[in-house]
C-alpha cells in the first residue's frame, strides 16, 4: 500500500530525511552521538583515570560538585564514596555499560532471530522443541545465571555479556516466532513459496522484514533492559567488579546515598543512564516508524 514520494531520491536519502523529520528523534540521535563520543574519548578528556587506584584517594571521597581534588583538578560533579571523580567515573562507566548493553543486545538479537525464524518457518516438532527450550530459558532467573557464571568464571565484562545474552536471546526468539507465525500464514509467503523461492530467501527477504517492527520494539526495550539489568546485578552484589565500576555499579553504589544528603553520588550516574537509555530509545522509536513499510506516509 505504499505511495511513492513525489521527489526523486534514493531509498537511503528518503530514510535519512524521514528520520530527521522528527525533532525529538533528531535530538535523541545527536544526544546519543554525543554520549558515544564522550565515552570513546574518555581517557583523553577526563582529569582522572578512575580505574587506576594510584590516582584515586579516599581523601577526596564524597566531595560536593565543584570541589578541588588533592591532585589539583576540579571535580565538576563531585566525587563518590571512595574518592573517584564522578565525571571521570561516569564517562569510564559509560564505556563499559555501552559495551555491555550493545554487545549483549546484538549477539542476543542475532541468536534470537535465527532461532525464532527457524522455529516459525519449520514448525512442527522443531518448533515445539525450540519453544520448550525458550520457555526453559525464560524460567531461569538472570541473577542465578550471573551468579553461576561469576562463580565458575569470575566477575568481568565478558561474563556479564555472556549472562545478558543468555538472559535475552529468548525474548527475541519468542517475539520473532510469534510474529513470523502470523506472517507465514499470509498470502504473500504462500505466493513466494509457490514461485519456488528458496527457504532462506523467503525467510530473510520476505518474512524477516515484516517482523522488523516488533524486533525493534523489543530491541530497544532490551538494550535499555540490559544496561538496567547490569545495574541490578551490581545492586545485588553480583555484577561487575567494584574497582572498575560501570554506570550500573555507580548507580548501585549511589543508591546507598539516596537519603544521605549527598545527592550527587546517586543522582548524576542516574542522569547519565537516563540520558543514554532515552536517547537509544528515541532513536529506536523513530527507526521503527521510518523502517516499517506499512507506516509510510
Amino acid at each position: 500500500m505504499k505511495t511513492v514520494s513525489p521527489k526523486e531520491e534514493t531509498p537511503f536519502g528518503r530514510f535519512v530525511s524521514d528520520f530527521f523529520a522528527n525533532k525529538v528523534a533528531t535530538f535523541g540521535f545527536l544526544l546519543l552521538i554525543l554520549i558515544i563520543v564522550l565515552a570513546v574519548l574518555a581517557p583523553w578528556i577526563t582529569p582522572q583515570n578512575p580505574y587506576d587506584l594510584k590516582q584515586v584517594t579516599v581523601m577526596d571521597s564524597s566531595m560536593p560538585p565543584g570541589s578541588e581534588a588533592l591532585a589539583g583538578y576540579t571535580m565538576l560533579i563531585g566525587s563518590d564514596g571512595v574518592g573517584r571523580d564522578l565525571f571521570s567515573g561516569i564517562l569510564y562507566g559509560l564505556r563499559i555499560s555501552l559495551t555491555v548493553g550493545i554487545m549483549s543486545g546484538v549477539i542476543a538479537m542475532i541468536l534470537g532471530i535465527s532461532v525464532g525464524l527457524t522455529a516459525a518457518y519449520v514448525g512442527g516438532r522443531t518448533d515445539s522443541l525450540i519453544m520448550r527450550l525458550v520457555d526453559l530459558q525464560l524460567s531461569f532467573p538472570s541473577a542465578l545465571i550471573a551468579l553461576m557464571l561469576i562463580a565458575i568464571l569470575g566477575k568481568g565484562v565478558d561474563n556479564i555479556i555472556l549472562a545478558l545474552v543468555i538472559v535475552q536471546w529468548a525474548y527475541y526468539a519468542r517475539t520473532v516466532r510469534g510474529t513470523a507465525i502470523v506472517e507465514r500464514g499470509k498470502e504473500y509467503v504462500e505466493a513466494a513459496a509457490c514461485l519456488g523461492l528458496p527457504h532462506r530467501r523467503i525467510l530473510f527477504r520476505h518474512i524477516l522484514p515484516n517482523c522488523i517492527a516488533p524486533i525493534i520494539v523489543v530491541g530497544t526495550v532490551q538494550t535499555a533492559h540490559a544496561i538496567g539489568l547490569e545495574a541490578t546485578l551490581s545492586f545485588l552484589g553480583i555484577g561487575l567488579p567494584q574497582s572498575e565500576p560501570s554506570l550500573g555499579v555507580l548507580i548501585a553504589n549511589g543508591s546507598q546515598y539516596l537519603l544521605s544528603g549527598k545527592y550527587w553520588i546517586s543522582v548524576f550516574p542516574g542522569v547519565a543512564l537516563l540520558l543514554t537509555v532515552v536517547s537509544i530509545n528515541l532513536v529506536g522509536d523513530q527507526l521503527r516508524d521510518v523502517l516499517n513499510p506499512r507506516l509510510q506516509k
Partner: protein
Amino acid sequence: MSVLVFFGLNIIGDPVYMLVSPDADQEDIDRVIRNLGLDRPILEQYVLFVKGALQGDLGNSFIFGESALGLISRHMGATLELAFTALFLAIAIGIPLGLYAGLYPNRMSSRVIMTSSILGFSLPTFWVGLMMILIFSVQLGWLPSTGRGDTATFLGITSSIFTLNGLSHLILPAANLALLKVSLVIRLTRAGTREGMQQDYIKFARAKGLSTTRVVGVHLLKNILIPIVTVLGLEFGSLIAFSVVTETIFAWPGMGRLLIESILQLDRPVVVAYLMIIVALFVVINLLVDVVYSILDPRVRLKEQGK
C-alpha cells in the same frame, strides 16, 4: 535443568563455611557438612535428590531446616498477589494510554505519554523503588514504605487485597513492579494501533460506517491483542521470577526475595525447588498464551488444523 542448577550451585561454593558460627572448629564444620549430606559425592547427592523428587520431596532448606517446597509455597501467595496486581496495573494503565497515543499520534498528550513510557523503563527498578519510597512514604507520608499489610480470606484466597491496610501496603511495590510493564504495554499497543489503523480491514470497517468505538474496540483491539498477550504471558512469569528486586526493597515477604537470599546463601534445595516450580508455572502460562492466542487469531488455529 535441575542438573544444571544442582551442579552449578555446587561449583559456586560451599554454604557450610558461611553458615557455621565463626567460633566453630574444623570438627564442627565437618559435622555440619555430614548433617547436610554434603560429604557425599555430588553424583550420589544428585541421585538422592532425584529419588526424593520423584516422591514429591525436594529436600530440606539448609538454612531453615524445613521442606523447601513448603517454604516456597508459604511465600508464594504474597508474590502472586503482587504480580497479579502489577499485571492488572500494566493492562489497566497501558492499553488505554497506548490506544490513545496510537490513534492520535500527533497530539501533544500522545508525545508526553510516549516520552514518559521511555522514562518508565529507562531507570533500574531498584532506583525507582527507592525514589517511590522517598516521595510517597517519607516525604508525602501517604503510603507505608515497606512490608505486607493485614490479610483477609475471601473465597478461600488469603490476600492482602481484601483489606484497606493491605491495599495501602500493596500499591507502591505493585506500581514499582508494573512500571516497566506499563511502558511495554503502552509501546506495544501504540505500535499495533498505528499499524492496525492503516490495514485494509480497518479501512473497510470505517468505510462501512461503523462507529469509531466499534472499530477500535472490536476490530482493532482484537488484532493488536495478539502481540500484547504473547508478551504479557512471558512477562507475567518474569514478574514473578524477577520480583526479587522489588521484594528486596519493599521488604515484601514473597518468594522472589526468598530466592535471592537462597542464592546468596547457597541454599541449594530452595533454589532448585524454586526453579522447578517456576518452570512448571511457565509451561502452564505458555499453554494459556497459546490458547488465548488461537482464540484471538483464528488464522493460527485454522492453520494448525489444516496441517
